């Protein structure tokens, strides 16, 4: 049942022009960044020493920038997930079907994950195109992609939750973006001289990505993203349950 919902969600994402527009814009901007980085790297080949290689420079630079674009784009993809169904009345179809709320939320989320995987593939292809000419550190690229994927999971879950709060997709988009940016900016608090500064720093979305981007795989970072995702999915289920009562 989860997969029936997920497949339907994925199909609906891809029949809407929004998804294609998002893919196109993301690809265009990242392509632009990629070429820029490439020219930079070709000009100053001496930045590559024994510590920073082409994978670091190209992959790390590209994926660092990709997080900003994803922050802007993910709320647009998640905004419709529940709010639009509520607006058009199709949510009752799911609620009256023999699928539990957990299955509904997981199904929708999995459909979204399908779209994320498409994005990841596109993001992976760019650095991999350098493979014939350079000695690419695939491990670092993989770590970066894993980081991006985990971050998208977190963005998606938070966006799904915001979408469950309202019946207007645009409000869900604005709210989702605001929420993500806020959690992102918690990093700032880490540099302030206040109590629990480190805790805020730890809670921030961005800090955990930096290690992965640099090729450092820390289980703690992975677990952070997974907990973040699970927490917001759980909140979504709670929100839908509240609506029924």
């Amino acid at each position, binding site marked *: 049942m989860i997969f029936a919902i997920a497949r339907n969600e994925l199909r609906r994402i891809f029949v809407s022009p929004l998804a294609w527009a998002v893919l196109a814009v993301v690809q265009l901007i990242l392509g632009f960044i990629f070429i820029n980085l490439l020219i930079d790297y070709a000009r100053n080949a001496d930045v590559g020493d024994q510590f920073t290689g082409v994978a670091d420079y190209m992959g790390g630079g590209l994926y660092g920038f990709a997080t900003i674009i994803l922050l802007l784009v993910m709320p647009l993809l998640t905004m419709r997930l529940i709010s639009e169904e509520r607006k058009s009345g199709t949510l009752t*179809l799911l609620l009256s079907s*023999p699928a539990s709320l957990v299955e509904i939320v997981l199904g929708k989320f999995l459909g979204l994950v399908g779209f994320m995987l498409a994005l990841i593939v596109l993001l992976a292809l760019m650095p991999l195109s350098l493979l014939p000419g350079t000695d690419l550190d695939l491990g670092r690229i993989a770590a970066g992609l894993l980081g991006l994927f985990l971050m998208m999971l977190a963005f998606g879950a938070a966006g799904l939750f915001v979408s469950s709060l309202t019946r207007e997709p645009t409000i869900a988009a604005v709210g989702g973006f605001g929420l993500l940016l806020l959690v992102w900016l918690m990093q700032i608090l880490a540099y302030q001289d206040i109590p629990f500064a480190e805790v805020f720093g730890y809670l921030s979305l961005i800090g955990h990505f930096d290690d992965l981007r640099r090729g450092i795989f820390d289980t703690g970072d992975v677990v952070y993203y997974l907990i973040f995702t699970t927490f917001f999915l759980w909140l979504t289920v709670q929100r839908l349950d509240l609506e029924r009562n």
Partner: protein
Amino acid sequence: MENQILIEARQLSRRYGPTVAVDGLDLTLRQGEILGLLGPNGAGKTTTMKMLAGCLAPSAGSVRINGVDLREEPKAAKRHLGYLPEQPPVYPELTVDEYLSFCAGLHGIARADRAGAVASAKKDCGLTQAGGRLVGNLSKGFQQRVGLAQAIIHRPPVVILDEPTVGLDPIQIREIRTLITQLGQSHSVILSSHILPEIQAVCGRVMIIHRGRSVYNEPVAHDALAAAVTVQLRRAPDAGALLALPGVARVQELGDGRFRLHCAPQADPREAVAEAAARGNWGLVELRAEQKTLEEIFVELTAGDEPRVESPQEKAA
């Protein structure tokens, strides 16, 4: 198993903040029955149906579907249920086939059987030609059919339809009605409407809801017992002679040889009146059962401020 109870709602209540939308409603649906829910706008029909379909948790009371409690085992209970809300829950960007196939999967139909289920639901709802079209491009009537197909695709014993003919043109209304009547042969149906002839044409039993309470719950009477009989006699005897006839509970003189005889419960005094009139040479010129139409009952029950006062008498009648 002919009269198996498929839906049993007990003391169903639903509050929205201080507003009581449904207040202690009892509802029973047996196999092979088409039950019409009737009520003025805002009477609580939609809320009741949402609760029966499991989209809304009741504030109090319980719902059992095919013997399974909706609160305790929602998944098992909802398997026996098809629900068409007021607004058909369709995705405009999918084709009819894609949409119905998704609904089939959602209701746990195995992948191998889905195509068959989709085809048979389309056939039942007259959608065979429309399979490849986008739902969003269909007319309201056809979208309604898609909604209906969605509700019956898993062949549930119970189908709940919330105002299925709203917004349709007269021909579409007639088609949907025919469809519902056909559905009634193999499914039990609960249908809500505020269109009286529709209920009369389609339903086997009517429940009138007013202010969240059930004020009337009777089979639709095609040859119902009359509540009263009007007679006109040329040579009328005194009222006592009429009162003595079997089945007459009360006699009301209307003047000019006319009487209204209020019937005793479950009695029809017409034959006795005719016989006595012939025997006593009363000169019978008119003998007519006063039958209440659904419309009269509806207006009587829902117009007043105190609907509950009228209902016991109605039931007795």
